[in-house]
């Protein structure tokens, strides 16, 4: 009697430990385990399950924004104070946006100057409706701390100006949306468009100015285009 009970016990023990071992024997990075507990995994067409941590498809979500809004790009950015933000944060503000890089000697300072001219052209009682965004095309060098220094050097009001650092692919996607062209040169400078984009409250591009040094006519036309709605 005792013998049988012992065998029974041994069998159960074996059964239990076996499943214990099975669980442990799955490779940690296989993703199979994660599949059971974490919901944010995805399966590629080849059947490989990967954790969905690295942006991709999740960043582009059907959202509340208009179909033409650049806020559809729901990617994570860091501002000059290293705070995580998405572009949708600027919804309901009128936005003036440009892509630049901090070590740029020629065109970028002129672009920033143009944006400051626009800022000063807006009446003081309306200025809080507007935001000014600079996005770096050199995210590996222009870390948020560098952007902070840049903002200080250019004397940009941190309440209205946001300088953004994002992943290389997110920068590319934003550039593609704006029609901004850039490429890195052998000496790690960039060849790039000089483009200022004006977004309405929904984040739709309503006006773009290509080239340097804005005249007052262009400024008032651009501002009017984003004040409509």
């Amino acid at each position: 009697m005792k013998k049988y009970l012992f065998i029974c016990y041994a069998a159960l023990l074996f059964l239990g430990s076996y499943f214990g071992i099975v669980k442990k024997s799955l490779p940690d990075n296989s993703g199979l385990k994660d599949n059971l507990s974490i919901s944010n995994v995805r399966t590629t067409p080849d059947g490989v399950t990967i954790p969905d941590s690295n942006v991709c498809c999740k960043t582009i979500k059907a959202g509340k924004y208009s179909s033409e809004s650049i806020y559809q790009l729901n990617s994570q950015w860091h501002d000059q104070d290293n705070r995580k933000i998405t572009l949708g944060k600027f919804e309901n503000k009128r936005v003036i946006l440009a892509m630049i890089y901090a070590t740029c000697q020629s065109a970028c300072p002129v672009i920033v100057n143009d944006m400051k001219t626009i800022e000063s052209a807006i009446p003081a009682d309306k200025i809080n409706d507007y935001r000014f965004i600079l996005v770096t095309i050199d995210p590996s060098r222009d870390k948020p701390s560098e952007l902070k220094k840049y903002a200080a050097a250019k004397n940009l009001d941190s309440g209205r100006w946001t300088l953004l650092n994002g992943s290389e692919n997110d920068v590319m996607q934003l550039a593609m949306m704006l029609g901004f062209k850039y490429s890195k040169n052998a000496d790690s400078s960039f060849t790039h468009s000089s483009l200022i984009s004006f977004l309405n409250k929904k984040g739709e591009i309503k006006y773009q100015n290509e080239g340097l040094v804005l005249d007052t006519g262009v400024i008032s036309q651009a501002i009017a285009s984003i004040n409509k709605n």
Partner: protein
Amino acid sequence: MGMIEKYINRVCRFAIGITLITAVLNSCTVTLAASNHKKTHRSAESDMVLIKGNFNTPLFKKPGEKSSQYVKSFYIDVHAVTNEQFLKFVKANPEWRRSNVKRIFADKNYLKKWLDDLIPGEKVNPLSPVVNVSWFAANAYCKWVNKRLLTVGEWELASSGNFLPGSKSIINTNDKLIKWYSRGMPNQINSIMSTGRNSFGVYDMFGLVREWTYDFSDMNINGVAICGAGSSGATELTNYPAFLRYGFRSSLNARSTLPNLGFRCARDLTQN
């Protein structure tokens, strides 16, 4: 031996039997699962070939640049992404279905030939390259499979492989290539791997569809006028097909979708 003991005896034997059977079955399943897992990883790899780093001569020089530009080694998909593969992507990512896609990411001809969001339909060959996809969609697909789009330099390098002797490629001379580029939009696109394989082991670089590249809007592709003065800055004036490719790329917008424009993906060597 009493009834109870007999009963316990039977139950225990039964339990041991079941335990052993389950153990054997389980170990089989686990081994299978593990090998399947490895296999899928391998098959993802085997769909790609290594292109060894080499010098590629860009059509246009950037300021202060040598006429040859070094392209680092990379893996490339041996064929373009098919309708079948893209269907899996839109199934898993509802925001990329035709009825959901936002205009800022793709124009109104996105997946135009498909019957419905999740039904390509009988007229669409599941094994032909997916077309009518925007740069944003191609970029998102490649990310989804843990890959990325090829750069222009990488594409040009991968397409420079000679056609293998006996390859059934219809396009093996510049003349034929120019003819192909000047052809209108095709009604029906053949299956992948139907136009020949080059010495790198890559299929259909010419003759099937044109392909998106990551940096198609590169300043030096788009910024320089292709005709007239632009060509005087070019490094290889006789490479007319290359001019046609650059001209085509510069006419594109990231949300453009065209009936002869598909894509394939690449992967860095360092990425596993």
